[in-house]
């Protein structure tokens, strides 16, 4: 059973932009808004090298990852050919100008994926 929670208003997301939704467990979820005010939700993680998709350029119904410019379809989470990969998507609906996400799904879906590491944390991860 789904448990819809109001996250924000559509107008809280920039047109052709995104916002991040923090979860108690697991990585953030990115909510995107296109030029037609449609809203999409994906795990904030590119299937290529884990880049934060919420920071990418939104165009048409795709977002370009800010790290290496992979194009990810916002409806499906699927990378555009010839690249291959898929990022988990989340259910989203818009009611009276409000953006709703499913609390059950947020609490249970795609909890295993992690943020890439950089800096001294990389070396620490290698030595342990």
């Amino acid at each position: 059973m789904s448990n819809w929670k109001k996250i924000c208003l559509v107008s809280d997301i920039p047109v052709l932009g995104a916002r991040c939704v923090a979860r108690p467990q697991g990585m953030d979820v990115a909510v995107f808004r296109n030029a037609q005010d449609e809203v999409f939700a994906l795990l904030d993680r590119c299937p290529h090298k884990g880049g934060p998709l919420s920071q990418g350029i939104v165009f048409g119904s795709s977002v370009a990852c800010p790290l290496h410019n992979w194009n990810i379809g916002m409806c499906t989470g699927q990378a555009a050919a010839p690249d291959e990969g898929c990022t988990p998507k989340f259910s989203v609906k818009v009611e009276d100008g409000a953006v709703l996400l499913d609390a059950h799904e947020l609490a249970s879906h795609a909890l295993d994926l992690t943020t890439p590491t950089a800096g001294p944390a990389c070396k620490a991860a290698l030595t342990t």
Partner: protein
Amino acid sequence: MDMRAAPKTKQKLVMIGNGMAGVRTLEELLKIAPDLYDITVFGAEPHPNYNRILLSPVLAGEQTIDEIILNSWDWYKDNSITLHAGWKVTEVDRIKRLVHATNATGETISTGYDRLLMATGSTPFILPIPGKDLAGVIAYRDIADTNAMIDAATKYQHAIVIGGGLLGLEAANGLMLRGMTVSVVHVMPTLMERQLDSVAGKLLQKSLEERGLKFLLGAQTQELVGGPEGRVTAIKFKDGTVAPADLVVMAVGIRPNTALAESMRLHCNKGIVVTDTLQTVTDARIYSVGECAAHRGIAYGLVAPLFEQAKVAANHLAEFGIGRYLGSLTSTKLKVTGIDLFSAGEFMGGENTEEIVMSDPFAGVYKKLVIKDDKLIGACLYGDTVDGSWYFKLLRDGRSISDIRDKLMFGESNIGDVGHQGHNKAAAMADSDEVCGCNGVTKGTICKAIKDKGLFTLDEVRKQTKASASCGSCTGLVEQLLMFTAGGDYSATPKTKALCACTDHGHQAVREAIRNNKLLTIDSVYKFMVWKTPNGCPSCRPAVNYYVTSSWPKLAKDDPQSRAINERSHANIQKDGTYSVIPRMWGGETNASELRRIADVVEKYNIPTVKVTGGQRIDLLGVKKEDLQNVWKDIGMPCGHAYAKALRTVKTCVGSEWCRMGTQDSTQMGKDLERAMWRMYAPHKVKYAVSGCPRNCAEAGIKDVGIIGVDSGWEMYVAGNGGIKTEVAHFFVKLKTSAEVLEFTGAFIELYRQEGWYLERTVHYVNRVGLDYVKKKILDDHEGRQALWENLQFALDGEPDPWFEFDKAEVDTRQFDKLAIPA
């Protein structure tokens, strides 16, 4: 009465000919109007569309027929295209709009059309000599011919190839590799006389003779002699000599295949005559592309022009009605493994032309450049073709070469200095050698992708393999591989390169339209120039945003959602999604208070790495996005724009204030330049340096603008680069005062800001327009220079610091806060 509207029936498009130009037109059409037509294709050969250029590697045993198929049977099925392969069109009734065809067993079919696309290609020319119809006498045009040659090579010994042009030599080479004894008969005194001058032709002949080919030059064929079984046995020449021949390949040229068109009473003259929209002049319902079409009197035989035609024809078939084909420049490359040869333009020279020639017959290198009115009009290269694509670009752009004439012969291969083991000749590399050091792509991987996936353009290779898609320093190597693997004509790209796939317009056209029509928003540009996508793509949107804001300062509003993340968050994104922060340190000078604040911030926000940059500043790495605003505030130093296409660092040496060698106060000059021009967005990043004496400790020779103090004033250098390819800056002018340094630097950089293409560094901008042009604008035109400098000051006046004036800088601060899930 049934009031429901009848389903609208689709229009019928029939294509005659199933070759590369025609099918490419269908591909382009399906991309932009997938549901407009019911499509039927007639192809005389019993194969789906294949890459005709690669027949030579098939003959040479380097590839198989399966590998050169471009569109599989499934492709036709998946796109609901009815394909009649092995059916020859016998008649077209233009009044009833019916196409009649027949197959090998004599069956016939008829199909109606609303639009007809004639892509019948060309037919080989057969010498009208006795014996031409004997068994064992073939042309070299299609899969059947290729198979016949491969078959003959297993049974017979002596092959004669008539014709010493591109195709003939490739056929001869292939037959020789398959074990036959091959002689090439050519009526002219040198080989490939339409692509090479006589010196290069002789070098080529020598090299092919060393491989085992024999040549009979200036020989006129009289007849082919047959044996008792009706197969050719010998060739007889006009001077009475005879040579044995079990196989004769006629490769003396091709003719546009216009027989059907003529029977339809379409106007033909050296091909089916078409307009700039690729419609036949006789019947506007009928289009023609490819080798059969004569555009402005030329029937093109190379792939790249045909693909340009395909694009235009598809656009009109899709009822968009924009785009015209204006003809192509072409270049040639021979596909014989191990032979490097390139020619383009009017390489023979002629009246009022000058030639620059470099000849080293011992090393097998020959280069000839033909110049007319200070412009390069032709090039012929043998043995070393690294610079072929550069010469071709100069030829196409038609820019004056007077300022680079002395260096022209030495080329300017667009290969970076690092990242590929110092290689500059792709041919000399092993398959396992890395071409692209950014993405780890080897030569073997690239060549395989080009062959297997049927790639023709640099963009396609970048998409498929990622080679040269990051820093681009190996672009020249990838182009060479493409030239060699896919054939010579890849480089005959359109005269203007489209900005991206969203439009056919190039950067220049977009810039001009924005300036001439006072377009102030990205949307108005997209509307005015009829963009194909509603809100562009990550390539065009940042470019167009830069063009409107730089063309109309104070009027056009910046659109942060059309900037890449770094310029939207005013910090530099790292691989884990954190950011780096580099505050501005005027002229690279700092003090205890600034350092103390930086140290405090590092501790307060747990910033994991602090690094001194190459541009004399301090980089804080690993800052969380939600901390950015506070980090900026606590440091209290101006934004360093280290993340932006903008003025970055001004590197300085200590100068006369301290240095016992210093002649000028370089640190102060650097600070003045930086304070005058910071906050300046540009087509790409901009770096300055100022040295206080000719020892040049600030390395001003590799910066966009480098200033070097001398006892009597300042020397100004422009368009240097220290990155991918080290480019030494050009000496620009000698100046007396620091006020002049500001004015000349500002004017130069404003010219670049107004005329540069997005992502073009100053070095590439100056290479494109020529240093002479820039000198004319800045040094000779005093009023123009002052106006440019004033423009820049006007554009920068009151511009905000994005780290502190969020509203004015259009910084959307919502991005720094995460949304929470309510309980």
